[in-house]
């Protein structure tokens, strides 16, 4: 560091000397560290501590007995909802990827002067509340909605079909809500690809599809990994879509945790489930990144 600064000649910036003396980087880290300590580490410790409690004599009273068997109990009671959450999240992520990849590709390579307009449109749903947008889906899928009428016209549904309050509605709702989180990282990594590498592939006897498979997709993998993570993680913990668009058989783990905290006020169970969810997501993501990491990423 000293060698570097001396090469640049005498410094006119007073911050430079400050940096060398007191370690400015650490100083800059302080607010963030403090924030994490207060709002991440402390709550997690509280969560773990709550998770091993058992109900006491009074209502809303819990006694710390370090009962780790709580975890086993919670898992055996709620494993269906856990598995359902991960399946829904995975299907929603795949659906979002299938929609977002062509979209991001078109914006990155084919949109010309419309690029910025399209990017704004991708983000535009954020200007409206998450809950409202999900409620709107209930209107769109309703039996008296226009979509239903169109599908009915083509005999794809009949009057006994129920689009709302279904598994399909929950999964499409999840896909819809997290679509921008998939699209933007995909766009960013596609846009970074030098179009000449694609021309080079064509020049080296690869047709359009082979070029896409051997050059475009591998080079966009960072975006695919980022996008799927940003979609899958919040989708796995989501409860709004299942609540608004689902039925009792589509309950996700987020709904259970929500109910245990706010309705049943069984804090130890809610804390146990939350912690299990967190660990499960962490484990799945780590495995996923390792697997994706063995692909030839840039």
């Amino acid at each position: 560091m000293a060698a570097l600064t001396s090469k640049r000649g005498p410094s006119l910036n007073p911050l430079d000397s400050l940096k060398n003396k007191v370690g400015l980087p650490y100083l800059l880290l302080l607010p963030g560290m403090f924030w994490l300590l207060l709002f991440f580490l402390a709550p997690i410790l509280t969560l773990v501590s709550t998770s091993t409690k058992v109900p006491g004599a009074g209502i809303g009273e819990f006694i710390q007995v370090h009962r780790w068997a709580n975890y086993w109990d919670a898992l055996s009671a709620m494993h269906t909802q856990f598995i359902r959450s991960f399946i829904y999240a995975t299907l929603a992520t795949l659906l979002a990827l299938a929609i977002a990849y062509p979209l991001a590709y078109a914006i990155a390579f084919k949109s010309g002067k419309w690029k910025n307009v399209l990017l704004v449109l991708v983000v535009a749903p954020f200007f409206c509340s998450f809950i409202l947008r999900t409620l709107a889906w209930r209107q769109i899928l309703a039996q008296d909605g226009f979509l239903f009428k169109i599908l009915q016209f083509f005999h794809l549904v009949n009057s006994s079909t129920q689009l709302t309050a279904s598994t399909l509605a929950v999964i499409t709702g999840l896909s819809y809500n997290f679509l921008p989180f998939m699209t933007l990282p995909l766009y960013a990594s596609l846009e970074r690809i030098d179009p000449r590498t694609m021309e080079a592939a064509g020049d080296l006897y690869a047709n359009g599809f082979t070029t896409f498979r051997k050059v475009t997709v591998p080079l966009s993998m960072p975006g695919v990994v980022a996008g799927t993570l940003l979609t899958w993680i919040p989708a796995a913990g989501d409860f709004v879509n299942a609540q608004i668009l689902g039925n009792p058989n589509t309950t996700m783990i987020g709904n259970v945790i929500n109910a245990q905290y706010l309705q049943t006020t069984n804090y130890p169970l809610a804390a146990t489930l939350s912690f299990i969810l967190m660990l499960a997501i962490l484990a799945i993501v780590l495995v996923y990144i390792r697997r994706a990491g063995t692909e030839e990423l840039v």
Partner: protein
Amino acid sequence: MSDASTSAKGDLQLKNITKTYGDFNAVDDLTLTIPEGSFFALLGPSGCGKTTTLRMIAGLDEPTTGSIYIGSTDITYEKPYRRPVNTVFQNYALFPHLTIFENVAFGLRRRGIKDVKEQVDKVLQLVELPHLAERKPTQLSGGQQQRIAVARAIVNRPALLLLDEPLGALDLKLRRQMQIELKWIQTEVGLTFVHVTHDQEEAMTMADTIAVMNEGRIEQMGTPADLYDNPKTAFVANFLGQSNLIQGTVVDTEGENLVVDLFGQKVRVQKNRSVAKDSSVLFGIRPEKIRIQADSHTQSGCVLEGGTISDVSYIGVSTQYQVEMPWGQELMVFEQNDDGIPPLDKGDRVKLSWEPIFSFALNGHEDATAGSEVNPEEE
């Protein structure tokens, strides 16, 4: 994939190629034959249409009209991946996610070639980088990336190798070295190389034949020496090296020579080195062919008197003089520093002289500054 187009062999022929963008002719009725096995350079300033021409040969652009043949096969509208043509791209366009080995193997694998490893190893030997096979492109220096880009193309043994400003991203020293190497590789593999560049030195070092392009057309084509010694247009005279072009009038004929009047002074030029259509000529002489001496000396050959040195720059191997002539024009003179005589000074009165065989005459109705104002480095 052994159909007619990918296995086409023979001379490359461009027939009346025109490429139009809106109402702008990037390439204007270009007809050109590039013999099989030659090292051919398309030389010109930025925007002259040379890169567009290259892209049409590669199949990355389609001509508006005209056709492209390799041997007797029409490849005008053939997809790039179905042409026996490979390209070394400007900035190389190596695949960043693949190793050097896989980069080079890419074309072979697409064509389902059997002995990929053997062929890749061989071409990596040729470019002297076999030890880098397992690296990624970003771990290589610019010069190494350049050689891999060449290897990735020539491993496919195309009928035609296109090089798009291949040395533009390298520094001067490396560029010189790569020029020699590319020329050597071309001789070694015996493929037809078509090289696009704005750098006249690069073109002259490597190419057997150079076509000088300007505004979508070929100004002149020939060997480097021929283009330099016998420019046919002011653009070529100024773009390839430097020239002094002086407005003059043919006043007489003396045997094999024309007598030209340059603002009252008579000089001679060989008849067969004149392309003038009438008596109005641009009389041309290269700066290094001129001898410069103090006014008092007597001189042989053609002589122009009454010059005044307006600027002197000493650049080691030579001294460059700007000489203001009585009619106001500045002439350029390069004098080798090989005689031990100290350079003349600014303000000295001088005579300029040269052997008549070195001078040439162009059409006098041309713009004498054509090709001299373009900044070739600006691509």
